[in-house]
């Protein structure tokens, strides 16, 4: 069977206790030695590996040897994990609260102008216009909580 993480496809077959995993024409032998909640002891090509694994919808958090990786599981090996935003869409660089909205629909804005201010964990971030234009829509209001990558404001060419 095939599994897809980020833009990588793994082809996996099971042979009793061991698994054969193929990616990029390379095959690796692996065995699960022990498993408990959130933790796997594995034998990968003869080497003992302890992995901590957590799942959050399609996201997998994996820690091996002190290094943590965030993988996204998908149904097919499509390129690019991040949502693609159109050029005029300004998104939240971090999760937080909208502290101030300085523009409204129809306003002409100039490059570098602060459109709104976000606050999270004592930090203030100004969301600025990347270029001159006209605000075509404002999708948030003051006090609202936003997620990372959430669209805040749309700008059209003036």
């Amino acid at each position: 069977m095939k599994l897809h993480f980020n833009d990588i496809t793994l082809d996996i077959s099971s042979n009793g206790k061991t698994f054969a995993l193929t990616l990029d024409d390379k095959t690796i032998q692996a065995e699960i030695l022990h498993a408990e909640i959130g933790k796997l002891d594995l034998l990968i090509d003869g080497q003992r590996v302890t992995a901590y694994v957590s799942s959050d919808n399609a996201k997998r958090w994996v820690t091996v040897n002190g290094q943590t990786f965030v993988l996204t599981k998908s149904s097919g090996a499509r390129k690019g994990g991040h949502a693609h935003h159109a050029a005029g869409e300004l998104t939240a660089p971090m999760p937080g609260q909208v502290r101030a909205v300085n523009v409204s629909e129809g306003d002409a804005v100039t490059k570098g102008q602060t459109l709104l201010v976000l606050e999270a964990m004592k930090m203030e971030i100004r969301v600025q216009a990347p270029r001159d234009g006209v605000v075509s829509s404002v999708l948030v209001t003051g006090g609202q909580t936003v997620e990372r990558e959430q669209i805040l404001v749309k700008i059209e060419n003036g």
Partner: protein
Amino acid sequence: MFKKILIANRGEIAIRIMRACKELGIKTIAVYSDADKNALHVQHADEAIHIGDSSPKESYLNADKLIRAALDSKADAIHPGYGFLSENASFALKVASVKLTFIGPSADSIRAMGDKAESKIAMKKAGVPTVPGFEGLDSEKDLKKAGREIGYPVLVKAAAGGGGKGMRVVNDESELSESIESARREALNAFGDERLLIEKYIPNAHHIEFQVFGDQHGNLVHLFERECSVQRRHQKIIEETPSPLLISPLREEMGSAAVKAAQAVGYYNAGTVEFIVDPDTLTLRQGSGQGFYFLEMNTRLQVEHPVTELVVGLDLVQWQLRVAAGERFPYSQEQLAQHGHAIECRVYAEDPANDFLPSTGKLLQYIEPRGPGIRVDSGFTAGDEVTHFYDPLLAKLIVHAENRAIAIRRMQAALKDFVVHGVVTNIDFLQAVLSHPDFANGEVTTRWVEKTLESGSLLPENRQQAVELQSLIAAALADLAIDNRQSKIDNRSEPDPYSLWRNPSGFRN
């Protein structure tokens, strides 16, 4: 001694204070906001009082609500922790006015050290070395004259300031006018006070601070230094003691200056005198008072107090409580010594790859390291939500070892055993700093992180491809095992596939 103390704080420091209270047989009262209803600090307390909305202004910064909670619960003292209202003189006064004890210095000491210009004047009077410069200048003409006298580069900064706000580096007289204007504007916005001071800018400085401790009977000592030069956006990331830069007799000189500074404002309880140290002038220095300068005094317990505790062998929070209750501090300067080396790393929920911006979410896994010489002060546990309302500090990881080289290795090993899933952390970044030769050589200055990041030589450790591949395989096998399990007859309904891990034999074929 007190019977019951209200802790006007949250997170790791609230828990740290509760531990000290428990050991002294004092009951504790936690306060919490909406967001902290199930927080760890609430579970650690004997009683917990809800004080309001998640926004700090409505809860942890609301003096009246905190005092009301203390009175209602019949507490006899309030510990402010650090941050929030810990350095607010009018809060200290309010607490005293309702006959409760504020665990900290007097309101007068807090006020005297709260203003950068006023405190600098007081320090000069007390004979504590300060950065060459001028206070109380108003007109641009006077500031220009001062700039020439000091010699560029200079720093203009807000008298009421803190946290780098209202501060500008001026490299040349031509930039002065604009810098004054923008620093004034920022200072007015942030502090409602546009007074500025001007001083020599020292670009390659170490930040070295001295812990001081005093009782209400006139005893005042220092508990040696902490080196806090690893900083980003004026925020400390790694602290250690002893400082790799300090040698005798400079250590003793700075220690005496710290004591002198604290005495000048009639200080008691725990406090920290911060200095900037210029390594370039240190090597040339002959007499005393050259090379180190008073920066400011923090009139509270410091985030990084644990490294001092480990190296001098005292419980600072217990002593805060005891001297606040009127006890004498029993150790003289001669009886105090440094033993071994301690390092603290601040583990933050922030993403180095996203410009160190905060990362929020639910902690899917949270496993702290253990072992000889490892201490973790933390306010979170697995399943907790890291919200955007408060500081992104997840935990302080502190190690103690017989010398600096071993302490660094111990920290590297401990960080490797720290597992956090659900929010992105700076653990990789901390590892990159610890393994950098500049850190090993003790050559890190306060601008080092910024400069080293820019030069590209402080990228997160080159990720070993082998480890990345192993992670991928682990993720795949975890999922596959679950699929296998689900295809078998399973009459228990378990909505979360990962809860299948409760029965490990299920995927061992």
